[in-house]
């Protein structure tokens, strides 16, 4: 459990980091909080020739309001997100999801950008980003660009990042008035990766569902948007019949369900349905409570 030899660099700027990435010709790894990468190194499953530590780059660690959005620096720890009053009050879904991630020790080290870039199928943040319609800002040698979360997670453990690009910021919209949210997951133990999870957002106007967003995690290689369930909810009055129909859509939404010793594909799909049903009820209660 000792890593193979590697070179180590701790650049002071994003530009220096991207230059190092480019020079390494795809053989470097970025080190953020290290909660996934360090075990992979120790098990010799990752064998980069160069480790580029982002921890010394100033100004990648912030949570602030910017142009009507919440902007989160990529090196912001999950604990900082959890403790941010801005996030707790203006986008409580992100606050709640953060509390489901691992344990305090993990949240103290793990970063928002690290989770997004790792793109673990069982992780909460990618699904939350997709559900919220977050934007990810990437910096590369040719400058900066923005990618919608919906396009950022093409396949498991893979992102839209080019080999020499670095994720610098995640931009999240604020919760709309009259909307409710829920993030629920089933894990073998508190803090474990989810066997199945569901992020739900509901907007209710005049007693009818005006907007709906349902995203599953832990059940498939990438976050799964339950578009059929979302569409079916629109215009319905919030309640059990509509929610049960959406839950059924969730069970059918996963084309390539994951399977492992803890949970078969069929069980995961079943759980997705249960969680969507429960999540919709919770989100509806919150929407009604807030309007």
């Amino acid at each position, binding site marked *: *459990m*000792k*890593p*193979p*030899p590697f070179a180590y660099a701790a650049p002071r700027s994003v530009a220096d980091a991207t230059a190092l990435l480019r020079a390494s010709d795809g053989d470097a790894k970025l080190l953020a909080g290290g909660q996934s990468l360090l*075990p992979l190194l120790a*098990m*010799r499953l990752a064998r980069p020739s160069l480790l580029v530590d982002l921890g010394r780059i100033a100004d990648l660690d912030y949570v602030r309001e910017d142009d009507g959005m919440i902007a989160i620096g990529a090196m912001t720890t999950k604990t900082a997100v959890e403790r941010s009053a801005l996030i707790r009050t203006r986008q409580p879904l992100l606050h709640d999801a953060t509390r489901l991630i691992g344990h305090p020790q993990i949240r103290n080290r793990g970063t928002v950008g690290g989770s997004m870039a790792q793109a673990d199928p069982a992780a909460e943040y990618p699904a939350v980003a997709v559900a919220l319609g977050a934007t990810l800002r990437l910096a590369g040698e040719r400058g900066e660009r923005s990618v919608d979360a919906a396009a950022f997670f093409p396949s498991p453990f893979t992102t839209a990042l080019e080999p020499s690009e670095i994720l610098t910021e995640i931009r999240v919209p604020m919760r709309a008035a009259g909307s409710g949210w829920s993030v629920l997951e*089933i894990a*073998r*133990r*508190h*803090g*474990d*990766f989810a*066997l199945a999870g569901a992020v739900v957002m509901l907007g209710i106007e005049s007693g009818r569902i005006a907007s709906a967003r349902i995203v599953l995690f832990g059940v498939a290689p990438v976050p799964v948007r339950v578009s059929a369930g979302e569409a079916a909810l629109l215009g319905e009055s919030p309640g059990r019949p509509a929610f049960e129909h959406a839950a059924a859509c969730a069970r059918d939404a996963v084309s390539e369900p994951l399977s*492992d*010793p*803890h*949970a*078969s594909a069929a*069980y995961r799909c*079943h*759980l997705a349905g*249960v969680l969507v049903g429960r999540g919709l009820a919770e989100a509806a209660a919150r929407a009604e409570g807030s309007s």
Partner: protein
Amino acid sequence: MTGGIPKTIADLPTSKARYIGERVPRVEDQMLVSGRAEFIDNATLPGMLHGAILRSPFAHARIVRIDTSRARALPGVFAVVTGEDARATTAPLGTIPDGWGVHCLAVDKARFVGEPVAAVAATSRALAEDALEQIDVEYEPLPAVVDAFEALKPGAPLLLEEKGSNVVLHKQFRWGDVDAAFRDADRVVREKLRWNRLGANPMETFGVIAQWDPSEATLTCRGSYQTQGYMALGISAVLQIPAHKVRVISHPHGGSFGGKGGMRGTCIAAMLSRQADGRPVKWIEDRMEYLVGGAGQAWDRHYEAALALRSDGRFTGLHVTLLDDLGGTPEGAGAISAAKPLASFTGCYTIPVAAYDLTLVLTNKLPTGPYRGMGPPPHNWVLEHLVDTAARELGIDPGEIRRRNFIAKDRFPYEIATGNEYDSGDYEAALDRVLEMSDYRRLREEQAQARAEGRLVGIGLVSTIEPGVFDWNAYAIVGVPMTGVPEGATVSIDLFGKIVVKVGFSLEGQGQYTVAAQLLADYFGVELGDVRVVAQDSLSAPPHFGPGGSRLGVALTGAVLGAAERVKAKLVRAAAHLLQADPGVVVLRDGRLEVPGVPGAEMTVAQVAAVMLTRSDLLPPDLEPSPEATCVWTAPGRTPADADGRAKSYLTAANACHIVRVEIDAETGQVTIDGYWIADDCGVRLNPANVEGMIQGGVAQGVGAALLEEYVYDADGQPLTSTFADYLLPTISDVPIPETAAIVTPSPFTPLGAKGVGEGAMHTTPAAVLCAINDALAPLGVQATETPASPHRLWKLLESARSHAKSNR
């Protein structure tokens, strides 16, 4: 020797015991919480190298060729060993039963994923691991047999071809006329039950620093050894060094629960040190090595069991068939775990006859080792499951059916069908207490209400025996020939009256140093801090075994008090001489040697000890000038086993009655434990806080067994649970804190009346939680018959119940 050892706390030479029996803070904790205890990975020796082990990636494969030349050529690499070196310089590992051993490094073929194939010693662990990548091994994969039933079939791949079979042992035991009991029974309940492989997971894995001394041809092994003397014998046999030339030094270690193992790792490190001309070689097992290739997996069992009973609910016979999958070899005491249930085969009940059909089989998985409880926990689940099934079929409350079958408190000592003798007990008292604590009647009312609402609420009530003070004779049926387990202690008093007690084991977490200090402080009338416990290595300590088998608290009490009695006898002779009194009238009391009724005729222990050590001119000429003595204790009255394994084996029988309340989420299969009550009787509690810790820790491991822990292998024998992300230990969020009560029926056989409780609730909790789950499921007509009761498994049961209900509509 038990002659003069006090049988009760009141017999100690003190007006009032200040420490023993009290909730004394542990003397070990200062060094543990300050980080000063020298765990093996903190130790460094001059010139030390670091070892790493290359392990088989195949469950079964011929080793065609190993080329180590590139590894040897790396700067900083000082030794490389393979199976060829093991064949040339070592004997096969010992096994139980005897004669199934393989070498510590695979010779010719590998039998499980993780089996050591080669090893390297280098100047750092990282470099040693780099060197492993430079070793080329050509494997020829062989078909693997992973399922125990498949391994029994003719034509199955053979683990040891020369044996012609994978069956290590197949025996049928009949204790009494079992056929008649089943023939004449009013009712027989049967069940097939599957206990999946799980095991010990101490915080610290195994680690060793082995140092070969080429000048004297001796070996010193420092490590996290649970049982140093026993290990020294094994190392001596494997490395073919006389035992007196092997010194094993047990360092303080971070728990064991049976999982420390270390035989292969020690022998490999020793081989590396020998090749490196005697430089010390440290090898620390990492967690993946522990989970895949360590000594911590246990109890991979297929049961088929039946209980015969009368219509009034009285049990008349028990028949247990066990197919126990030992994995790759019987090197790890898996067989002992199949034998130990004989010590409490019929539980708390008067079941007059019993049968055991036992088959031990090898498969291409990690060899199983010991785990806390050493075998009875699965057996207890099987028995308690049958009892619950019987209660359900007869419409008798689970508490009531147990009460009707309990061994009554006036029938002790009580010999069970399998030959062991229970020392004492009051099982009804424990049951009554836990019924009262839990407000059982109210629990059942709430359950009825929950069921009416469609909720799956269950109550588990089980009552079990924890055999304590293990004896080798309990394992006669798998070929262990010994009776008695000597445990020694040497007590010395210095010229200031301070006390040192030397023992043959190191810190492991159970608090035995505290028990020794409590005993001696009260015995000689000193403060707790005036007693120091010092661990001796395997060559320096008196005969010893160390912790294991819920034994050390009682055995240590015997050894320490026995030694104290002998010291006292010397002090009395010296004091009598000095006080010009007859030795027969001098007594030790509250730290003074005195002649009762003679004012002023008294000396302190310190004064007498100081005279003994500094003024031989004042002593009787035939008195040794040494306020020091050794006592080696073993359980009295143990008998060698007969041909059917009947023996007076484990000296004590502790009893526990648990009630658990669970709720199963009917949609997801998730289990929540929302109530837990325990009444426990381990006789006199030498330190109640220690006992409570033992029980709480057992609850944690029991919850893991019932709900979470399972080593999973795929059909090719690849382990799928090689990290803690997949092998799920209970965390603080998963473990209930039970409400507990003590019942005390002193043991008539032990010093001070204490009973072994080191395995604690591990004997009871798995059965209690699983019985609660099945109580919750009972209205649906399905039962959980496989461990752990994971949400996925329970969901499948719930689905089958739902589809069954639909098709019956």
